[in-house]
């Protein structure tokens, strides 16, 4: 099963290495990982998407908690959350197909961020399903390059 884990860590050098090292040393697979500062500049948040059954996830969570630089670990499995992934996608596009692509982008509330003679670059934000649906629709036009941030997530409500 896919789990989204949110980890609050001390904003110090070497912390990311500790966390990625933990995953590689214990053979856990990371699907995506996104890091950024939080509202408190001394704290960073790492959002990790990881595949595994319950026992693997229990170990991942415990192992993360064991690191002195880790302040809080939350597995979002049973939480109501908003997930966002951002991709920049460069698609081959000549004059002929450009309007079609723009039309699809509009439906997805995606942004056209760059247009060149033979290509078009689009920014899409959304949960993973939306992003992959958009990528599927772009495939026939020949995708030249995709860059993704990895998923970030936040809980709904006042918590």
């Amino acid at each position: 099963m896919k789990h989204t884990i949110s980890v609050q860590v001390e904003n110090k050098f070497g912390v990311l290495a500790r966390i990625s090292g933990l995953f590689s040393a214990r053979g856990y697979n990371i699907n995506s990982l996104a890091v950024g500062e939080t509202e408190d500049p001394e704290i960073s948040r790492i959002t990790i998407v990881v595949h595994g059954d319950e026992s693997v996830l229990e170990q991942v969570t415990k192992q993360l908690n064991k690191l002195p630089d880790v302040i809080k670990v939350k597995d979002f499995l049973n939480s109501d959350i908003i997930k966002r992934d951002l991709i920049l996608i460069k698609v081959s596009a000549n004059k002929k197909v450009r309007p079609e692509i723009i039309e699809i982008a509009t439906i997805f509330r995606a942004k056209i961020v760059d247009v060149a003679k033979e290509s078009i670059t689009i920014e899409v934000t959304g949960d993973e399903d939306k992003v992959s649906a958009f990528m599927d629709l772009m495939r026939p036009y020949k995708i030249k390059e995709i860059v993704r941030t990895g998923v970030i997530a936040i809980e709904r409500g006042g918590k």
Partner: protein
Amino acid sequence: MNGAKIILESLKKEKINKLFGICGGSVIPLFDEIYKDDDIEFILTRHEQAAAHMTDGYSRATGEVGVCVATSGPGATNLVTGLATAYMDSIPMIAITGQVATHLVGNDAFQEADTTGITRPVTKHNYLVTDVKDLASTIKEAFYLARSGRPGPVLIDIPVDIQKGSCKFTYPEKVNIRGYKPKTSGHTKQIKAAVKLINASKKPVVYAGGGVIISKASKELRAFAAKGKLPVTTTLMGTGSYPADSELSLSMLGMHGTYFANHAIQNSDLIVAIGARFDDRVTGRVKDFARGAKIIHIDIDPTSISKIVNADLPIVGDCKIILKKLTKDIETKKRSGWHKQISKWKKEHPISYKKDKKLRPQYIIEQLYEATSGKAIITTEVGQHQMWAEQFYKYNEPGTFLTSGGLGTMGYGFPAAMGAKMGKPKKTIINIAGDGSFQMNIQELATCVINDINVVNVVLNNNYLGMVRQWQELFYDRRYSQVCLGKSHKERVPDFAKVAEAYGAKGITVCKKEEVMPAIKEALKYKTGPVVMDFIIEEEENVYPMVPAGAAIDEILVDMA
């Protein structure tokens, strides 16, 4: 105050008066302060790995935190095996390493290595100090982390310019790490539930590990076992946590454990695991381990619980505190049926060996036990001799059997013995070694002679890397690939007694059974430095009982037949 002096003053605040290690280019400022300091004794070793093991041995023997020092680059990388050894066995220690000057870090400078990067997986935590103002608080934090919770080694990497830099010295009183708050007291509801399970159990077994020794809970374990008449088996790391001569003792379990401990586990209805982690050498084939038993698992490290074997009832906390609470609430019981069954197993297959005229290692260890009245601290290297040392010397007190259990580090025993002697100068310290292992840190004979460190090395010399040879004999049709250490079967290399004498130590060679006791007595009388006893034992003696790799622990071979 300069950084180097801040290091020493901080160490003194932590009551450190001994350091083990070797100097080098990027710790010269620190060694200059050591030169000027009268309160700190420095043991100059011949290899940094040995310095790390000495520190570890010092920590294990005293229950305190030892400190070792090495230079940057190769000095630091040589510590790695020692740190990994301590990490696997949860031993608190501090390693201080020099680093190239901060402006050179990352430039592939002379003797530069990414020490914090390299040691990250083998330390509980590590630091690279980049500002002299952080030095004192970092040291304070390092000691706190090393000794609290599940203990472990902590490394502090200090660039040479930080050692030379200066600031005002203030040593913090308290540490607050918001991401690190070990739980010690145990959940009340869980403890209640455990009491219920224990009271209801007809065939319980207590499985005690190194955690009992680390939390200094041996007394509590005895009281707990006595009240509930609970049989106790110990892991290699738990050896000494429960008296081997007690009626309730089942000795060690697992691959080279006793027949009766393994059968007790397999037939029990309740396992109470205390400060143990279900290592593969303990469990054998995991899915068949303690098939019919419920499992209570008490450990201070939540990651140890349900990692390998699912715990029916986990209790996170300190063994000592939890054992006290459990003992208070469990019922006094006899459980005579269960004990009758265990006695039967004990009678059927006691730990034994062939008693004939040949010089057998088990006999030597029995004689050591006699000669020391069981009062020595025994350290070991790793291999067959390590198992014999566990099986044939009886350990009744914690901290009397120091061995590399988790990592299985050959070369550990001799320096660990030296560290133990530095921490417990009045104790007799004996390193039981193999001829292979002893050569992995044999150079420390120099350190030992120069500093008059009185330890006895008992080399059980079978001319082989014996444990691997045993596996090759049993499971690889006697294809002895790269395990013979001599020139031939007749010609063993080196002559250990001569090596000892070249270093200025005492060397004794023993070839016959009847020479054993007089030689041991002679060695124990020698008080001025190290002794090396070279026992020329049977080449192909095996360790039994043995559970083959991948088998369940009751599929146990008790001897060749």
